[in-house]
């Protein structure tokens, strides 16, 4: 404590003027999203074009926000929609309720429902909030269908398939490095994700957390450069 303590605030605030900003001009430039980012859902298809959804309604059952509505139906014998006995006849997600918790993705036994990284879809009509099957199922190239009100950016539709969850070993060392899932339309079968047994080196990944990026730009004498 000294006489000049009240003036410390002036010194500090003045110094901030010359410090770098960490703010990025959001709509112009966007930060790359993490690999497991939860965005708008997609319904995947097999490489032969068959839908993965079997209409089991497990996703609807597990959904904490009650936003999924599924009705299954028997596959027509002459033109089956999915490889199994039944398929998702009606599939609707209400995005006014969805909290993007990804529990449906966890619950799905066939990896039919996964999430893309697209989260900027502000509709002007409440009916647009309810995505039907026609909007959710991927197109013939295995890419998510883009709606007019959605803001898709570069890389938002990468890593959307069931590959992500299906190749993660869930902590089981025995399952590491083994792809446990079928191929996806448009993506085929990808190499399995690295397990947790041998940790990747700290700075190998590009996507640091916001906090770390921000801290890296603050001089060390001010308590920055945490990484």
């Amino acid at each position, binding site marked *: 404590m000294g006489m000049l303590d009240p003036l410390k*605030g*002036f010194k500090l605030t003045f110094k*901030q003027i010359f410090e770098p900003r960490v703010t990025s001009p959001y709509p112009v430039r966007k930060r790359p999203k993490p690999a497991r980012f939860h965005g708008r859902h997609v319904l995947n298809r097999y490489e032969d074009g068959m839908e993965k959804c079997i209409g089991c309604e497990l996703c609807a059952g597990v959904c904490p926000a009650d936003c999924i509505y599924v009705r299954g139906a028997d596959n027509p014998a002459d033109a089956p929609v999915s490889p199994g006995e039944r398929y998702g006849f009606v599939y609707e997600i209400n995005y006014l309720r969805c909290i993007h918790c990804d529990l449906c993705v966890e619950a799905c036994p066939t990896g039919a429902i996964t999430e893309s990284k697209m989260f900027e879809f502000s509709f002007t009509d409440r009916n647009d909030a309810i995505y039907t099957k026609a909007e959710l199922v991927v197109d013939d190239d295995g890419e998510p269908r883009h709606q007019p009100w959605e803001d898709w950016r570069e890389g938002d539709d990468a890593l959307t398939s069931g590959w992500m969850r299906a190749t993660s070993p869930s902590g089981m060392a025995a399952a590491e490095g083994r792809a446990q899932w079928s191929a996806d339309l448009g993506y085929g079968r990808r190499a399995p994700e690295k397990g947790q047994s041998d940790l990747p080196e700290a700075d190998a990944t590009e996507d640091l957390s916001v906090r770390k990026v921000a801290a890296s730009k603050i001089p060390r004498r001010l308590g920055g450069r945490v990484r």
Partner: protein
Amino acid sequence: MTPALLVSGDPVALGRATIVVVAIVVVKALLAFGMLMTAVALMIWFERKLISDMQNRVGPNRAGPFGLLQTMADGIKLMFKEDLLPEGADRATFRLAPFLSTVPAFLSFAIVPVGGVVHLFGYTTELQVADPPIGILFLLAMSGVAVYGLMLAGWSSGSKYPLLGSVRASAQMVSYEAAMGLSVAAVVLVTGSLSTRAIVQAQAAHIWDWNLVRLAVIPFVIFLAAATAELNRPPFDLVEGDSELVGGFNTEYSSMRFGLFYLAEFMSTITMSAVIVTLFLGGPDGPVIHLPLLNWLMPIGWFFLKTLAFLFFYVWLRAALPRLRYDQLMDLGWKVLIPAALGWLIVIAGFRVGRVTGLVTFAVAIVVGAGMARAFAVGQVRNRDPATSSSTSGDFR
């Protein structure tokens, strides 16, 4: 005060009111108004940008280059918003109040000398809208009127928080006006004139003649603190106290009426900075190159530069200091600023009489000041501990 006396510094009152003279006065008034409005727009931008810099943010950067047009965008938005009139409001007063705070803010700028003297069409005119002989008293009068704006705004809203805000405002402004007046009195004492032009001219000779130095800084500091309180700017922004009073006296205001309060706040910030420059920093005084155009443009430049420094300081205050508690505010006003201003005024008066008298008054002022400080400290302790206090006022702390 007759109207003729009010404007006696101007050619109109000197019986030479030709059409050109009237035109010059009108043009000066319009020019000052236009400049002040532009300055307000830029000041709002400047404040937002600077405070965002000090808080490590980016600040407005969408409208125009560097977000310069942000104020314009906000103004247009405000104009098109619905103008709400609360049901419990006193309608006429509610409508009047914003103007009561905007008009004085502009009027007090009229007495500020912006530059030197200009020769136009054979007439000589001072670069200030008016130079009334009551000069600086006009400023005090106008800041007195501005209290009505806030007071009536809060009262006429017919709502509790605005009323609380306006009660705070009037109490605060009235108490700090005393300290402000006393520090102005010190300036007037050494100048021997109330006219702002005379005050500026008295400081023009040398930097040591600036009232800042001449009055030994203390009146300047007191005036600066009192002016900040008068402006209701941080750290004395209890009037607004958005976290306590939902925005304060202007809570019920919307649309352009709210805009007017906002305008008034920034306008009086600019005006007050200009007044401080006039009173203590020699106004447009500064080194001048004697060339045809430069010799009247450079003083204006100096004036703007000094004013800008104070505007920067006001923003800086906002970034650096937290809001005072109400009792702290009142303590600072009544127990520190007013006694200090009064004591210093007497000391200055003493030195005007002679060196010995000055030193004697200085010694007396210090002794009295120390005694008062001790008395306040004792009172503080008694108030804090109700057992030793005979009154119950301690319970309210």
